[in-house]
């Protein structure tokens, strides 16, 4: 029997099948599978696979030395978290710390030594040997004493000790540590005392008079803000914040004094005037000041009435602040790192006047960390960058292997002789400096090298932690100790034969253990043990390489023989009250919300806070008060042109009520920029007046809206 199909039957079958399929899962399955297939292209990155484990680590991105727990696949960290109960950071990390494991793969990672000619952004490759030979040639030809500066961006390490030793072996070389800028003026106020590491006992202070330090925004350790908020809730700590912008810290402090930027020195001297005039200063403290009478004469001109107009603060506020500061048993004054030397000196003078130096809740003179890296061991060779005459350096050697606390390029340029000068830097990243010849040696980054890390400044006692190597450093890179040893070899210093990085750091740990001082925090137990009870140096090593830390005993108070001299710091650049015309000028000022990391390579993911949201200011953003912006018909998003006596640049306006009228703040922080790079730096600093300490003064500016 044959089956015959008519055309009608075939069409009926096809139509029925199509209709039936609509009521079956087939089309949905096809749609689903299509969605799945089209999302698995080979160019979509895949996450790694393997056994997950954990390791302890210490962050080296700033001096806070936070304890970290790294989640790893093999030895590759895939995420980082703070160690709960860690004495420094108590489980917290900052935004940079969370991303620290990305730095190894940063697009701007330097793979081999490079050399930049002046004015050129083109990098010529060279070998490490050639680079070091070139350094030794330049040093050999620099006959003038102190014409070669070795700038240590993170003093207190084993590498720092080596660099200091090398400087001491050569007349032309001087060692310059970039220390905590708000505190280091105290060294100059105590000329006869040995150089001691400094700290600030924020936890012990009942009143903090803060001149612009970002207390609630990455100042000190990342757990600092939580501790301050807890104290605010308990109402047992007062914070008076002085700043010309309603910053995160200003808003969260007990009291905010909106002072005109650049008037910090005047305001602090005005407060000193009230303290001395009303005899509020501690008699015991006054006896320690050798030039008290001269200082009293000096501040006599800075009466609250005289200072008021320039600072934009009422005389009553100045008086009440002075009285509150002097009456608290443990008050301390601190200041932001971008303040001028005058301002830092005036603020530190307030601490001296009220006896806050060496007191609980004040500025702590810490004991040196035991071992060869002790800061006081080579005092004679230590200089501050502000004491180096302009245009006197022929060679600058920069250890930038650890980020943070770097000096502005404009300051380096100012210190170099105008011709035939060179900067040699050890850096993991490409860092062109077009104003002179520069050789850059590639450095290893976090998780690639062993290094010792002195602890944070917001604690009274000295401390030490260790960062370990989890991954092999790329060939050709070196750590800071290796760089110091190579530098020593190049110039024939005896320090060159000191040993390997691990040997030297183990020597330091052995000395630490032998001292029996302080306590050791071990993450494995979550507790601190007195060093006297720790059996061996190996136990110290194990705890520190697991993300732990050593904390010294809290130092005793000020030595009875301690003497302060306040005037020398004010005699260099006499402070004078501005004329009324100057007070009313429109000024521009650079600002960076995350100052510690300004000029440092960061993970591209940090763009989430600026490019993909407006949480942090982007590059070239100018913050203008509505009252100021209205006068120039400027709105948010407009392009404006800023002109100072140094030049002109265009920036993007953001009309923001949090900034003071008459002041334009321009971001120098990392921004995404048009090219997606996170490494561009604004030129606004080139438009502003730089002071001797490398920070910037408010600079008179004219503003013009740029029409599209």
């Amino acid at each position: 029997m044959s089956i015959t199909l008519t055309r009608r039957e075939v069409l009926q079958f096809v139509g029925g099948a199509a209709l039936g399929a609509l009521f079956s899962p087939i089309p949905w399955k096809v749609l689903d599978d299509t969605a799945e297939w089209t999302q698995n292209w080979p160019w979509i990155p895949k996450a790694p696979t393997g056994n997950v484990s954990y390791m302890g680590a210490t962050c080296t991105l700033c001096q806070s030395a936070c304890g970290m727990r790294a989640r790893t696949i093999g030895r590759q960290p895939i995420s980082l978290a703070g160690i709960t109960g860690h004495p420094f950071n108590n489980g917290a990390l900052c935004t940079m710390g969370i991303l620290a494991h990305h730095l190894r793969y940063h697009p701007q990672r330097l793979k081999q030594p490079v050399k930049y000619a002046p004015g050129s952004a083109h990098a010529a490759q060279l070998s490490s040997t050639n680079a070091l030979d070139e350094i030794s040639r330049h040093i050999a030809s620099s006959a003038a004493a102190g014409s070669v500066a070795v700038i240590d961006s993170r003093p207190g390490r084993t590498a720092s000790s080596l660099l200091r030793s090398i400087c001491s072996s050569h007349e032309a070389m001087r060692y310059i540590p970039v220390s905590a800028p708000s505190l280091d003026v105290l060294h100059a106020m105590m000329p006869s005392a040995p150089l001691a590491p400094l700290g600030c006992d924020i936890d012990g202070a009942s009143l903090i008079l803060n001149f612009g330090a970002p207390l609630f925004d990455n100042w000190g350790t990342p757990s600092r803000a939580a501790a301050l908020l807890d104290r605010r809730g308990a109402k047992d700590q007062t914070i008076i914040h002085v700043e010309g912008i309603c910053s995160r810290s200003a808003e969260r402090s007990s009291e905010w004094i909106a002072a005109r930027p650049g008037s910090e020195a005047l305001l602090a001297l005005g407060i000193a005037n009230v303290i001395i005039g009303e005899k509020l200063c501690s008699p015991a403290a006054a006896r320690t000041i050798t030039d008290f009478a001269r200082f009293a004469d000096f501040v006599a001109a800075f009466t609250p009435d005289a200072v008021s107009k320039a600072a934009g603060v009422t005389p009553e506020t100045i008086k009440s602040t002075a009285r509150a500061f002097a009456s608290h048993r443990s008050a301390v004054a601190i200041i932001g790192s971008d303040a001028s030397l005058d301002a830092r000196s005036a603020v530190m003078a307030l601490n001296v006047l009220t006896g806050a130096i060496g007191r609980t809740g004040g500025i702590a003179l810490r004991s040196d960390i035991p071992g060869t890296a002790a800061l006081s061991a080579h005092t004679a060779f230590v200089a501050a960058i502000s004491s180096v005459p302009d245009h006197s350096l022929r060679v600058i050697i920069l250890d930038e292997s650890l980020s943070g606390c770097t000096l502005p390029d404009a300051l380096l340029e100012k210190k170099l002789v105008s011709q035939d000068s060179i900067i040699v830097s050890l850096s993991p990243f490409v860092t062109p400096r077009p104003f002179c010849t520069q050789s850059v040696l590639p450095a290893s980054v976090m998780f690639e090298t062993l290094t010792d890390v002195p602890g944070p400044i917001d604690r009274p006692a000295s401390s030490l932690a260790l960062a370990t190597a989890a991954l092999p450093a790329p060939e050709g890179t070196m750590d800071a100790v290796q760089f110091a040893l190579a530098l020593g070899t190049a110039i024939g210093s005896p320090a060159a034969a000191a040993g390997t990085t691990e040997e030297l750091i183990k020597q330091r740990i052995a000395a630490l253990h032998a001292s029996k001082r302080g306590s050791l925090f071990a993450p494995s137990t979550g507790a601190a043990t007195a060093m006297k009870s720790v059996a061996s140096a190996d136990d110290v090593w194990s705890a520190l390489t697991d993300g732990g830390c050593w904390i010294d005993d809290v130092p005793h108070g000020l030595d009875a023989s301690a003497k302060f001299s306040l005037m020398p710091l004010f005699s260099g650049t006499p402070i004078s009250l501005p004329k009324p015309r100057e007070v009313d000028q429109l000024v521009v000022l650079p600002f960076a919300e995350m100052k510690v990391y300004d000029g440092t390579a960061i993970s591209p993911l940090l763009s989430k806070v600026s490019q993909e949201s407006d949480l942090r200011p982007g590059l070239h953003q100018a913050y203008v008060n509505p009252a100021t912006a209205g006068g120039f018909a400027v709105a948010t998003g407009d392009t404006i042109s800023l002109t100072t006596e140094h030049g002109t640049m265009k920036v993007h306006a953001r009309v923001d009520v949090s900034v003071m009228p008459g002041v334009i703040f321009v971001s120098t922080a990392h921004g995404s920029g048009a090219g997606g790079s996170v490494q561009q730096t604004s030129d606004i600093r080139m438009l502003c007046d730089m002071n001797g300490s490398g920070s910037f003064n408010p600079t008179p500016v004219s503003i013009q809206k740029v029409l599209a």
Partner: protein
Amino acid sequence: METKQTPPRYGMVIDVDRCTGCGNCMIACAVENNVPPPNEKATERTGAAWMRIARLDNGLPFPEHRSVFIPVSCQQCDHHTPCVSVCPQNAVEYDTESGIVAQIPVRCFGCRYCMTACPYHARFYNWWDPEWPEGMEKTLNPDVSTRMRGVVEKCNFCHGRLQLARAKAAAEGRREIADSEYQPACGDSCPTKAIRFGNLADPASEVSVLAKDKRSFRMLEELGTEPKVYFMSEQAWVHTIMKKNISTELKGHGNG
């Protein structure tokens, strides 16, 4: 006889007065969930960030002006969840075992109805393929798949972490997970402990207690979507804006 346990309803309480706007939650979220760095053309509206921090101002002039930071992610709506209702592809699901509104990128075909429906602007469309600098893909989280362009994504309370905690509990013969065993990356990384996370179905949990605090409120409460993210503040002006006007405030920030 085995009694039936009430399934957990995970939620979050954010103390706005403790938030300093540091951005840790945004960054930790991106690391945990393999959210890529931005394309060079990405902006606030087109870039992806499952958690964003908006700044709210009290509207007063300098120096009376004050502001707070509001971390905004998916509010995990509990009732008439708008994105679930509109998805034609079942790519958004309400998980009755956790209360989490889950996004399933492999099912998503990018119609973006959910983004239109979301009143919190908490969803993000992938305009570009994900791309990390060379080598950085080695740092990706193996518990979370990367997503390609053309799909929508959003916060899922770090569901990968919930799965790990469940697996660990199961291996130990337990069915219940303590709040301390499962914390999303944002709460874990918050240095001021402004973000608290836990089981809202447990009346004794910290988040349950905080959610009932008189300082607590939810964003756009009048919509009746019953979000499981609560906010806390002692400042009355923050309550006023957050309950009624926040959509306007977020419009410039969000992707929806």
